[in-house]
């Protein structure tokens, strides 16, 4: 019931939006639709919080034994909440951006929302793959149509990267299909016992898709360009939600399905993650473009999650899930700020900005909280997640190098403090220049959006128990499966 | 006569045809080489037909539709199809000739660029 609604609302509204000519109407409808989704999601977590409402299971492709099987377990709930929460904020915070053919812009946005929600809820591999692509294609069009100058080349690169990845995943899923005796059900996959060789093949095929999506070093080369060239609203989706698809895929479709291979390859990927984190952090320090800075910082943060996954422990796994949510919120806040700045000053160069704190105090305060969350200060949400992950990595029984990984992770945190604070300092403090001299404070809608985020950040930072309890069960399940071998 | 002789002859004709198609540049000659290939096939079909008939006769079976006669029917079909092909092929070659006053296939490079 809830899953179907969650998918159908954005899907149908999205399609319908193509028929609406006025941009303003389209925008309102889109906002309304996303709010309805959010309401449904919240209802699913409170009123309808029972198995009958949270799962949906109907036959789909008989020849393949594939089913329409959606389920909202703890992890899905968390991510769906993130998605449904993020979309209205994105639309609301970018309310003043105007687009050519706005109706199509919002239509595609909603289609991608449907895709994302489907990915998070699908319990059938074929369905998962379907939504995986459904989320991608609208984003391709969004980036290519409304992006920056080099958008066409950049987005085709992005598209081909992810498409190749997903095709590899498809092969992996097909292999799983045959190994499980003709089933696409996740529930069957986590019961499989495969030979080491088979697990390895499937692992490699699947991990490519997820690695591209997150992105994991060295599959990340599409990401900074794409983030930079996309319209900011789309970048928000890409980084706040889309990147989580990869991590989610690892957690849902990789680690529990091929645990032995995950264990076996764990150190290699953990090393890649560490390299990527450090590399991304250093690159971020050197960035002058706000968008690129945030993009690289995103790679660094995601790297930490990957690290926690490949050096698994209970605390780590749960930390990833929470951090997925937190990072989504935090990065969304960052992007909103970037968008505001770009809209107002027409530039994203840190070197060309400065002294905003005097002119826009509200923005500065809210921004500061978001930035602190980004560097995982205690009492912010990120602190909870990252602390759990460090804890997990440090004490992981799956790897011998837990301590080293944890240390490397801490270095990244420090580095992230360096670049985030440098950015804050250069943009908000110091002397004003001719660009920023006439700066005004942010509009009400952005204030509200950021405020909501900040409230969320602080709330979770102080009282994380609800989302912790949400993910307990599924974390345990994954861990059990991984410790089987 | 042993079947091998027929096979050698047919294969020789066939090979001449193939080589002709691959090496000659005149469309008409290529076309004739193709016809040569078809006729090599016809020859072999008839030879096989007799061979299988003899085989089944030796095994004491009465001639039936499957004992070689179908090969001779096949020859008829090949003839018909060859006639149809001749018709269309010559028409095409004539059309070509009327347009470029040559039947040399080396002229067929307009589409290359």
């Amino acid at each position, binding site marked *: 019931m809830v899953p179907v609604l969650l998918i159908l609302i954005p899907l149908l509204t999205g399609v319908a939006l193509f028929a609406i000519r006025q941009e303003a109407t389209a925008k309102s409808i889109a906002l309304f639709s996303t709010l309805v989704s959010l309401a449904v999601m919240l209802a699913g977590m409170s009123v309808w919080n029972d198995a009958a409402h949270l799962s949906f299971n109907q036959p789909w492709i008989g020849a393949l034994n594939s089913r329409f099987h959606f389920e909202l377990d703890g992890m899905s709930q968390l991510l769906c909440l993130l998605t449904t929460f993020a979309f209205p904020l994105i639309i609301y915070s970018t309310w003043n951006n105007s687009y050519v053919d706005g109706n199509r812009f919002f239509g595609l946005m909603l289609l991608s929302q449907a895709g994302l929600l489907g990915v998070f809820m699908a319990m059938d591999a074929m369905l998962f793959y379907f939504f995986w692509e459904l989320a991608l294609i609208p984003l391709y069009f969004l980036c290519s149509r409304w992006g920056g100058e080099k958008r066409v080349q950049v987005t085709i690169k992005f598209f081909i990267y992810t498409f190749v990845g997903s095709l590899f995943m498809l092969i992996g899923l097909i292999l799983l299909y045959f190994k499980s005796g003709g089933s696409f059900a996740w529930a069957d996959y986590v019961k499989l016992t495969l030979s080491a060789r088979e697990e390895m093949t499937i692992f490699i095929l699947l991990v490519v898709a997820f690695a591209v999506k997150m992105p994991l070093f060295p599959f990340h080369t599409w990401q900074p360009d794409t983030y930079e060239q996309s319209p900011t609203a789309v970048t928000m989706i890409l980084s706040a939600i889309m990147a989580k698809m990869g991590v989610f895929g690892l957690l849902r479709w990789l680690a529990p399905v091929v645990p032995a291979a995950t264990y076996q390859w764990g150190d290699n990927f953990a090393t890649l993650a560490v390299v990527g984190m450090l590399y991304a952090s250093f690159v971020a320090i050197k960035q002058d473009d706000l968008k690129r800075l945030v993009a690289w910082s995103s790679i660094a943060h995601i790297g930490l999650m990957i690290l926690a996954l490949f050096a698994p422990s209970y605390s780590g796994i749960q930390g990833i899930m929470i951090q997925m949510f937190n990072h989504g919120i935090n990065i969304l806040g960052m992007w909103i700020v970037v968008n505001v700045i770009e809209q107002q000053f027409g530039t994203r160069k840190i070197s060309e900005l400065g002294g905003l704190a005097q002119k826009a105090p509200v923005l500065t305060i809210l921004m500061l909280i978001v930035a602190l969350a980004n560097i995982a200060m205690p009492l912010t949400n990120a602190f909870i997640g990252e602390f759990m992950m460090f804890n997990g990595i440090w004490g992981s029984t799956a790897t011998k190098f837990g301590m080293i990984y944890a240390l490397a992770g801490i270095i990244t945190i420090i580095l992230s403090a360096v670049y985030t604070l440098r950015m804050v300092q250069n943009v908000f403090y110091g002397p004003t220049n001719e660009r920023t001299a006439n700066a005004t404070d942010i509009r009400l809608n952005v204030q509200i959006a950021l405020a909501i985020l900040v409230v969320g950040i602080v709330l979770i930072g102080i009282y994380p128990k609800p989302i912790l309890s949400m993910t307990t069960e599924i974390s345990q399940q994954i861990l059990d499966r991984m410790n089987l071998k | 006569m042993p079947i091998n002789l027929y096979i050698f002859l047919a294969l020789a004709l066939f090979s001449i045809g193939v080589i002709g198609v691959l090496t000659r540049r005149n469309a008409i000659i290529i076309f004739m080489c193709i016809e040569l290939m078809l006729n090599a096939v016809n020859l072999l079909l008839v030879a096989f037909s007799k061979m299988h008939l003899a085989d089944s006769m030796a095994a004491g079976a009465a*001639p039936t539709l499957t004992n070689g006669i179908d090969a001779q029917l096949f020859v008829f079909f090949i003839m018909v199809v060859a006639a149809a092909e001749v018709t269309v092929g010559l028409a095409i070659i004539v059309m070509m000739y009327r347009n470029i006053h040559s039947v040399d296939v080396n002229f067929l490079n307009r589409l290359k660029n």
Partner: protein
Amino acid sequence: MNLFFLQTAVASNTTINYLPIAIQLLFALGFVALTLGGTHLLGPSRKTSDKLENFESGIEAVGNARQPVAIKYFLVAILFVLFDVEVIFFYPYAVNFKELGWSGFLAVLMFVGFFLCGFYYIIKKGALRWED
């Protein structure tokens, strides 16, 4: 009787029956070659350039004779190829038609129907219209 006409006839139709034809071919070849050779030797040979020109009613020949001719001739040749093949199909039928009886006749009637369809079509398409 002989649905398998082509095969039962094998017995009375061996290679030896064709030998005389080969001999006759040799005869004819020999005759033609001898005669042509003979006249070549016997006849006088006083060649002049005028004599070796093509004869076009006394007017000087202009251009090459081998130019594209009316497409009609070509069309006739093509139609001949098609219809001749169709006619060929009647031969095995004609030889066996008593054995094939009425069912065979109906089949051939159908074939004739196709034949006539094609025939009517080419006539209507003007393939045989010479006066234009």
